[in-house]
């Protein structure tokens, strides 16, 4: 938190994207989080991703629950739609919004408490319904906003700031999501934007449910040496399973331009995603091998990061239940109210 407003001055040579906006045009109000909070880095990565994607802010809906993490939707995309729901209820609110207006880009930001504790049920259903959204969980293993209680993602091995153990096993949101049928599952670290930004772009483009579990250290309550969600621990144990490069539609991926590419994936907007394995032959498109591998990394105390799982089908809730093709606010009046003859016919069918 700072006491002054961020000055309006910008670097005179600040680059502009194709729609004439600078990175700073994607900012929100100044963050009130603790200095050094990982969540602020995620905010910066979201800003960078939206800038690179040239997203028009008014076509984005920022959704969140309660927590330091959930507050951050206020810190980016000042001119977007947004809904700050009650604790853990962001998935349902997003489901409703998405059903009503499928034309917007849904970006949910939540925390490990908001997602894995109070909101676990809501989260599970959004995943299995393949809600078309990017769900970012800013995972710090603690309830930051309420002063540092253990959260459900806190590892058994991780002690709290006062040295106390957690009696319970942790929930691995990525495993849960893969299990429940999410199409795009990634883990990242707030301290590595080079990895995080492309993942956010890919997640926003993905049609279906996309989860990025971002390990985002809480500097105030969970950044001590006995924590497994501290800057140092994550840096020391980070195990990148693969690299993801985004390739604009126009450019063909050749072996030369992207050495070590093992997979090319076409996104529904026509752009390409190039996946390259960094170590071991981890194949994110094969759940049969990916799940056991992830379990092995976890046993070894490694933090597997990168795109962990990808379902290339890219189907979403609308496809599954066959909803109207466009946003409801664009349905013309005569279709919305087809007249008494149509009502008669419906009633007759129930007699």
């Amino acid at each position, binding site marked *: 938190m700072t006491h002054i407003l961020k000055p309006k001055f910008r670097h005179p040579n600040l680059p502009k994207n194709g729609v004439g906006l600078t990175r700073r045009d994607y900012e929100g109000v100044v963050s009130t989080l603790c200095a050094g909070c990982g969540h602020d880095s995620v905010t910066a990565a979201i800003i960078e991703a939206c800038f690179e994607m040239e997203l028009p802010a008014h076509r984005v809906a920022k959704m969140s629950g309660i927590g330091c993490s959930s507050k951050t939707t206020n810190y980016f995309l000042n001119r977007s739609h947004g809904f700050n729901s009650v604790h853990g209820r962001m998935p349902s609110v997003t489901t409703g919004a998405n059903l009503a207006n499928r034309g917007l880009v849904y970006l949910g930001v939540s925390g490990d408490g908001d997602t894995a504790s109070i909101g676990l049920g809501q989260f599970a259903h959004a995943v299995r319904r393949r809600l078309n959204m990017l769900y970012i969980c800013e995972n710090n293993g603690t309830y930051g906003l309420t002063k540092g209680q253990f959260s459900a993602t806190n590892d058994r091995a991780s002690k709290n700031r006062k040295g106390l153990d957690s009696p319970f096993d942790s929930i691995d949101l990525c495993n849960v999501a893969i299990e429940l049928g999410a199409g795009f599952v990634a883990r990242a670290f707030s*301290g590595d934007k080079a990895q995080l930004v492309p993942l956010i772009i890919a997640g926003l483009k993905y049609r279906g449910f996309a989860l990025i579990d971002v390990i985002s250290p809480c500097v105030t309550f969970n950044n001590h040496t006995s924590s497994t969600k501290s800057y140092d621990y994550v840096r020391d144990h980070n195990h990148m399973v693969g690299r993801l490069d985004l390739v604009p539609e126009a450019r063909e991926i050749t072996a030369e331009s992207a050495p070590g590419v093992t997979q090319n994936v076409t996104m529904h907007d026509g752009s390409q995603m190039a996946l390259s394995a960094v170590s071991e032959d981890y194949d994110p498109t094969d759940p049969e091998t990916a799940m056991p591998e992830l379990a092995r990394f976890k046993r070894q105390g490694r933090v597997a990061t990168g795109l962990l799982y990808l379902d290339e089908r890219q189907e979403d809730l609308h496809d599954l239940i066959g909803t109207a093709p466009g946003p409801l606010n664009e349905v013309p009046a005569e279709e919305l109210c087809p007249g008494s003859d149509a009502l008669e016919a419906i009633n007759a069918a129930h007699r």
Partner: protein
Amino acid sequence: MDRTDTSDPSYFHKVVDCQWACPAHTPVPEYIRLIAHGQYTEAFMINWESNVFPGILGRTCDRPCEPACRRGRIEEKPVAICRLKRVAADNRGVVDHLMPQIPAQKNGKRVALIGAGPASLTVARDLMPLGYDVTLIERDPQGGGLMRKNIPSFRLPVAVLDEEVGRILDFGVTTRFGEEITSLKAVLDEGFDAVFVGTGAPRGKDLARVPGRAEADANIHLGIDFLASVAFKHVERIGKRVVVIGGGNTAMDCCRTALRLGADSVTVTVRSPRADMKASDWEIEDAEREGIPILDNHSPKEFVTENGRLKAVVFEKMRAEYVDGRRKLIPTGAPDVVIECDDVLMAVGQENSFPWIERDLGIAFNEWEEPAVDKETFMSTRPGVFFGGDAAWGPENIIWAVAHGHQAAISIDLHCQDRDLQDRPPPETNLVSQKMGIHEWSYDNDISDEARNLVPHADPALALRDLSMEVELGFDVQQALDEAMRCLNCDIQTVFTDDKCIECDACMDICPVDCINFTQNAEEPELRDGLRVPALNHAQDLYVSGDLPTGRVMVKDEDVCLHCGLCAERCPTGAWDMQKFLLKEAKAAPIVPADPQEQPYAAE
């Protein structure tokens, strides 16, 4: 790149663009903050210590600090540094008790200063507190040099000049005014321990080869001589139609003076294109605001006389061509322009000249009759004879004369004490954290984003009738505060401690102007190109840390840093701190009392 060595004071000094650009290295942001606090006396003293003539310079300085000012790179216009200096001088309280003590017991060394311009006066100010017996010799009846006889009083009121010159003379300087030196040997024979030549560049250039020059002599006046005659009230009138030839500041002063002496029409003509005019932008603006036309690309071709009186000047129209960056003026072939006039003021440059220095005294002169003067010590090839101000390397301006004076005084002191002239005292520097609380700093980082304030002017209807009515009125206290809040506090340095950084990116993310980067180290050109916003301004340094735990380095481009302190506020470990860097250029004598108890303007 190597890790930046911030223990070298010149690194942080360079970040303070204005101070670095000021020849006397005035601590600009320090006095601007004092003005914002309403501490005008303290702001005045900071200036007086560095540049000796705050009231004069606050009106007339050439202000090299302003084009250098960082604010001019993030917004259209720099901070009005010069006008703020005037605010300090205009609003200060009593300063007599803050003046250095002049020892009653002299140190036994006698120093002669020839010419009483700003260069000599600065030497006197710096040497008097050390107990030197200083003699100031000037051919004019009063001290001040060109500040008195060439800078018109509608720009610099005589009262301001008298006060600031008098303050130095009152230290007990022996004055020999009204005495023209015609032989340096005679001065040396008086047995002084050191002699300083501060005689300026008193000779105006002429256009002797233009046809008709000699015939029209009665109505052609050298600009600087004309201005001097006006200043000393030897001339009180001029013809109705006046042509001023020249595009420098002297031309601007001449045309405005002519207008006030009753000319109906005054025209300025310049040989070169307007963009190449030597005059400062604001002086051109002031002349044009008074309705004086400036005709560029007009080269004087002939002075036309009739019955022994000047009738007109004929001009050839020129255009500029640039070959390999060098300018050539070429006649366009367009019909000549004839401007009828009664008087011509010629302001085409000045030079130094030393007919009174014998060439057998051991003082070397080059082929252009310029003395050989050491750039650092200001000593000539004859030990004990020093040069400074316009006399050293030709016409400059007041602030350079002051800067020369400070250095010459140091040399004179070293020389008189039989010490090595190269053994120069280092500047006094200080670096102090400004942290008061988690998000509180002892400086105001909430800067204004308003545009530069315009200074009010006197009613032209009155000003044009009165030679001594000051045109610029100066900022009032509210305008001064508004303007002071535009200053970015560039002396409040962002200081980075490598081993405290946990690489959380918080500083990089918050920085409003994308200064901060965490990146792989590389050679400078590569590093500059690869930053978040490429660092294209090579005049500004990169601040590079040592290797951080992930193998990257922190690189900060100093270019457009707002010194807002947000990086330090966002840093969870205090790896960034905002620290005030105060540099005071060394003087021959400490000007401000050394006892901190007596230092009322220690702003910490």
